[in-house]
């Protein structure tokens, strides 16, 4: 069922949704960018369409609702442990096709990865519903078409294309029909917008031999990469975390266990007891990350981890392009074949 909505009609729909759901969407945060008086697009809870950033790629992904950057899991004191409360009201997440595909990867890691289900993840995940933001054009550094993530057919309540100040909705969830009808929205023929080509194209080799590990191509990043880990933290599929046990300073018998985001590019990730560090060189870290995204994950689950959103390229302070690394790996594999 398709609708075309004006801003006020769309706001009325959002208002209706808000009664039941928290709305989680990309928001342009004024002045909160890295540099003075620059902005950043980060996910946050919203109430109206004017708060949602429909025209820019979000710098950070939706994953922060599912895998918070810092999450207290439980509190402990002496013999008692209490799990931390979470907001367990239902939420609707606005996201683009690449991120819908990223969701599948996160689910894979946290829910369908061997016999264990991550209960902390599941508790949040079970409360989430999704709205697909249609892409009317490709953004800088996107390579979703190459990764096959440019299109999403299902798994969402409705899709919305923001075009010329109005909102074109393709409603999938019949239970919301009344809400849309009440808003006075005009019926129309709408399908979710998606891009069919990106400026950036990559070719992921079908088989990546282990010999690539020893390739010289990684050496360049020993110097170029500064190991800041921004690529991991903006990545919608990076799911690594580490644990922190904090003992409160005024009473060491009380404390909390947190899990916080971790990055395979940042110092400390491969440090083990006794101080050993397995991937000291930044080029080695780059190799590890790259092969996880386009080889190792696939060996286990049958599809690539990287969704081609290009956020890692957008954020890298050293202008290192991950899409270019994929193509370098491809070239190295081809060279090895010949």
């Amino acid at each position, binding site marked *: 069922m398709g609708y075309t909505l004006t801003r006020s009609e769309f706001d009325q729909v959002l208002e209706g949704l808000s009664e039941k759901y928290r709305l989680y969407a990309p928001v342009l945060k004024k002045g909160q960018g890295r540099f003075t*008086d620059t902005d950043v697009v980060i996910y946050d809870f919203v109430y109206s369409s004017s708060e949602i950033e429909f025209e820019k790629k979000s710098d950070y992904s939706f994953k922060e609702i599912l895998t918070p950057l810092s999450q207290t899991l439980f509190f402990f004191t002496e013999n008692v442990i209490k799990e931390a409360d979470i907001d367990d009201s239902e939420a609707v997440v606005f996201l683009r096709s690449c991120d819908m595909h990223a969701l599948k990867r996160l689910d894979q890691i946290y829910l369908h990865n061997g016999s264990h289900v991550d209960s902390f993840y599941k508790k949040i995940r079970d409360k989430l519903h999704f709205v697909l933001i249609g892409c009317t054009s490709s953004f800088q550094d996107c390579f979703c078409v190459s990764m096959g993530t440019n299109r999403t057919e299902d798994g969402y309540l409705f899709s919305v294309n923001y075009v010329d100040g109005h909102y074109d909705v393709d409603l999938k969830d019949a239970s919301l029909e009344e809400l849309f009808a009440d808003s006075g929205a005009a019926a129309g023929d709408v399908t979710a917008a998606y891009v069919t080509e990106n400026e950036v194209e990559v070719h992921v080799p079908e088989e990546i031999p282990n010999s690539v590990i020893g390739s010289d191509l990684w050496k360049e990043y020993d110097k170029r990469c500064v190991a800041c880990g921004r690529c991991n933290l903006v990545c919608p599929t990076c799911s690594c975390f580490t644990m*922190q046990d*904090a003992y409160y300073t005024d009473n060491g018998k009380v404390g909390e266990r947190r899990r*916080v985001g971790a*990055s395979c590019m*940042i110092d400390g990730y491969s440090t083990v007891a006794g101080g050993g560090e397995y991937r000291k060189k930044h080029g080695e870290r780059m190799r590890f990350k790259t092969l996880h995204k386009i080889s190792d994950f696939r060996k286990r689950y049958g599809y690539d981890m990287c969704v081609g959103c290009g956020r890692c390229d957008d954020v890298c302070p050293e202008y290192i392009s991950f899409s270019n690394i994929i193509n370098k790996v491809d070239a190295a594999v081809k060279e090895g074949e010949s």
Partner: protein
Amino acid sequence: MIRDYDMKDYKRNAFRQSKHRGEIASRVRVPGGRIDAESLMRVVEIAEKYGDGTVNLTNRQGFEIPHIRIEDRDKVNEELQLIIENTGVNQGEPGEGYPASGTRNVVACPGQDLCPFGCYDTKELAQKIDKMIFPNNHHVKIACTGCSNDCAHVRLNDFGIIGQTEPQYDPNRCIGCEQCVKYCSKRSVGALSVVNGKIVRDTNKCIGCGVCVNYCPTRAWTRSKEHYFRLELMGRTGKKNPRLGEDFLKWADEESICKIIKNTYDYLDAYLDMAAVESKEHIGYIIDRTGVEEYLKYAMKDVELGPKCEMAGRIYWGGKRYDQTNELRKSMFRFSDREE
């Protein structure tokens, strides 16, 4: 031809008297050191038409077009009109060049326009201050720098304006990667430490350089909405007592800084020694004479500092005192002993 020229009038008109008899140099004012291409072309044209085809870049981000014949002043002034209009510098009569030269060009580092560390638009503030104080013949030097790196060397000015940002911390976005701690320690003052996986900022030590914000990979650190400023007072070069400016305010607001600068001109009107050579004195030397308290009576008039602002309790300047001694051999560490 009789050569009878009022050189004081030339100087006030921003022409330097040259050591070459019959020649002057035109000093082009460029507030903040940012000039449009059209004006730059005009500088070139003047140099080619009236000078010898060369242009000096001045220490204070202006231009000096040398080897101009003294009698070409009016023609050069006419040509300068375009630059004066494009740079937005205050003027008396159009076509008559710059109306004053005592207050020096306001210098600015690239600032937030280009620099990742710049905490405010230095060029814009330099231009705003220029509009506020110019034309004026009092000898005052002002410089704006975007952050505590002080690339504009503002501590060598009467007023050194250094940008600050107050880092805002969101512990919920912090993963404890400690890059802020590392870079604050390596590139700044080491004001951050880790307590229970989260970051604690020593608010007294923090200089507001924004390095933590720049290196934070998650936006746990962001910049304050307000732009803050550190104000350094009465630095100078020179023969007698060169010295760095001293801290006067930190976490100050732009309006207060502008007011203090403007008020300083009233102080100069009151205390400038008219018997000084060419009636010109560095403000610092006047303050040395009247005492800081007297200066502050003028400077702080109607200034309402914000709630975050801290003011120095006392200010003592150091520096070299060549008027007292220029002795190197009797200094404490006598390297020259080896020769004796």
